C-alpha cells in the first residue's frame, strides 16, 4: 500500500485550473521531487495534500485513509508535516516554543488539566519538552532555543522550520522550496540535512525545488508539472534529457 496516493486531483480557482488531473503514488521511504516553472501549481498540490484546500475533483489517500473533509490540523495529525515556501514560523515566540506548540495534536490533556496542573498535564508537558529538546539537539539548534526566529539568519530560519515540522513526527514531510533564498554554503548544508533526516528518521520526503543541484543530488524520482498538468515523470537523468521539460523551462536558466 502506498503511503500517499493522489488520484485524478483537479483544483480550480474560479476560471483558473491550477492543478489538472494530478496523480501520484508515493511509497514509504521515498525521497522525491516535484518541479515545474513558476506558477505551475506546485504549491497548490502541497496545499491540497496538507488539507488546506479541498480538491475540486479527485481523491487523496494517506496511509490508506481518505483525507477528504478533514481539516488541515487533522491531516497533519495523520502524519503529514510541511514547511512553507515563504517561511511561516511564529516569529515572535522562542524557537523552543515554536517546536513545543507544533506538538499540539498529541498534547493529550485538556483546558482543565492546564488550569489544575494535573498529573497528566505535568507528564504531557514534560514529554513535549523532551521531544522539543531532542529535536533541537538533533537539528543542532540547541544554542538558539531562546532566540526569536525573526532575529535569526535566513538559513537558520529554514532549519528551524524543518525542525518544527519534524517535531510532529510525521510519516511524510513536504518541503516547499527549502533552498529558496539560501546562499551556496547554506545549500550544501541543507542537502546534507535533508539526506540525514531521510535516513535518521526513516521518513518519506516529498519536496518542491527549483535548484536542480539540490534535486539531482537528493531525489531518486522527479515529477514535472506545467500549467497544472503533469508533463514528465522519471529519474533525474531522464528528466534532464527530456525535451518537453527543457521546452517548458526554456528561457528559465534555473535548469
Amino acid at each position: 500500500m502506498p503511503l500517499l496516493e493522489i488520484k485524478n486531483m483537479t483544483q480550480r480557482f474560479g476560471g483558473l485550473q491550477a492543478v489538472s488531473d494530478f496523480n501520484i503514488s508515493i511509497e514509504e521511504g521515498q525521497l522525491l521531487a516535484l518541479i515545474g516553472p513558476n506558477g505551475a501549481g506546485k504549491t497548490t498540490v502541497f496545499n491540497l495534500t496538507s488539507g488546506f484546500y479541498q480538491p475540486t475533483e479527485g481523491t487523496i489517500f494517506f496511509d490508506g485513509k481518505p483525507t477528504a473533509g478533514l481539516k488541515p490540523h487533522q491531516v497533519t495529525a495523520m502524519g503529514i508535516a510541511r514547511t512553507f515556501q515563504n517561511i511561516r514560523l511564529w516569529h515572535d515566540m522562542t524557537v523552543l516554543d515554536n517546536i513545543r506548540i507544533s506538538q499540539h495534536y498529541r498534547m493529550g490533556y485538556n483546558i482543565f488539566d492546564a488550569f489544575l496542573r494535573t498529573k497528566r498535564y505535568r507528564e504531557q508537558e514534560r514529554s513535549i519538552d523532551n521531544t522539543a529538546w531532542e529535536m533541537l539537539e538533533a537539528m543542532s539548534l540547541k544554542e538558539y532555543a531562546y532566540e526569536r526566529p525573526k532575529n535569526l539568519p535566513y538559513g537558520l530560519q529554514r532549519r528551524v522550520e524543518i525542525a518544527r515540522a519534524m517535531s510532529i513526527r510525521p510519516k511524510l514531510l513536504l518541503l516547499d522550496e527549502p533552498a529558496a533564498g539560501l546562499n551556496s554554503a547554506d545549500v550544501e548544508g541543507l542537502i546534507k540535512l535533508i539526506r540525514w533526516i531521510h535516513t535518521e528518521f526513516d521518513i518519506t520526503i516529498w519536496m518542491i525545488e527549483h535548484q536542480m543541484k539540490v534535486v539531482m543530488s537528493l531525489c531518486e524520482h522527479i515529477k514535472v508539472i506545467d500549467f497544472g498538468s503533469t508533463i514528465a515523470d522519471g529519474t533525474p537523468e531522464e528528466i534532464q534529457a527530456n525535451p518537453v521539460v527543457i521546452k517548458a523551462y526554456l528561457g528559465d536558466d534555473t535548469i
Partner: protein
Amino acid sequence: MQKHTFTIALFLSCLGLVGLAQYNWLDQYILTVIMFMGINIILSSSLNIINGYMGEFACGHAGFMCVGAYVSSVLSVAIFAKDKVFGAPMLPPDLAWIGFPAIILAGALVAALTGLIVALPSFKTRGDYLAIITIAANYMVISAIENMDIIGGPRGFQGMKRVINSMYDVADIPWMLIWIIIGTLFSIFLIRRFVTSTYGKGIIAISQDEVAAEIMSINTNKMKISAFMLSAGLAGLAGGLFAHVYGYVNPQSFSIMKSTECMVMVYLGGMGSLSGSVLSAIIFTVLIEALRFIIPEVDSLMHSIGILPDSYEISQVWKWVIIPMILFFLMQFRPEGIFGNRELPDSFPKLRKFYSFK
C-alpha cells in the same frame, strides 16, 4: 522559599487590606476604589486573552460583563432575598455567603456561553469584520435586557444589597472586598495557567500566523472557542462582582463606553502582557477617580481666572474626551503599551528570584 516571596507578599497584602477594612481604617470611598481596581484587573486581563494573546480585536467586552452581572444578580435576589417579582427567598438568607460564589460562577458560566456568539463567527471572520460582530454582540445583549421587563428593562435591577446585608448579619467582615480579592486572584491564576501551557499558547500561535497554526496541528477553531469562552466568562465574573458592589445594575452601564474602557486598559498595559494588564487597570482606576476631583477643580480655576463664560461648565463628560485621548497618544507614541508583550520579570530579571508563578 525565596521563589515564593512574591506569592507570600501578595497574600499578606490582601490579608492586610481586609484587616484595614475590617477595623474601618480605610475610608469607605478608598475601599470602593480598591474594589473597582480588582474588577478592572479582571476585565483588562480577560480581554487581553483575545486582544493581546490571540491578536483579535474584540470591542464588546462589556456585553459579557452585562450577562454575568444580570444572571448573578437575578439569581442572588431570587434565591436569597424577598422580592416583589421573585417572592420569598428560596433558601434561608443566612446561607447567602455560602451560595454567593456559586451564583457568581453561574453568571460567569452563562457569560462564557454567550461568548459563543463571537467565537463561532470567528472561525471564518477575522480583523475588522470580527470587531463589528463583537460590537453587535454588545448591543444585542444590552437591547435584549432592556426589553425584559421582568428584570426591570431599561430601569435596571436592584435588590442585591439585601443579599449582601444578610451576609453582614452572619458575620461583620468586609464581604465584598473579600469576594473581589478572591475573584481577582482566581482570574489571574486561570489566565496565567492558560497562557503558559502548551495548550493555551496555541492562541499565541494563532495571533502570529493562523495558517501555520492550523497546518502545525493546532485545532484553531477549538482554541478560539476556549479563548473566547474563557475571556467572556471572566468578564461575566467581573460583572457579577460589579453588580453586587453597586447593589444595582442598569443595561447602560455595560454600553460600548464600558467596552472602550476595557480596551484602553489592555492597550495601555500592553497586548499579551498579564502584568501589563494588572498594572494598567490599577493606573486607569486611579486616573478615573482622580478626574472626578480634577475636573471640578479645573472648572472652578478657569472660571475664577475668567477664561470660561459663566454659562459653561466643564462637566464629568470631559472624562470621555480624556480617556480616548489617552488611547490617541498611546497609539502615537507607545503603541505597544507599557510592557509590550513582555512580563514584569522579563523587564526586571532580578524579580525572577522572587516568584515562580506557573
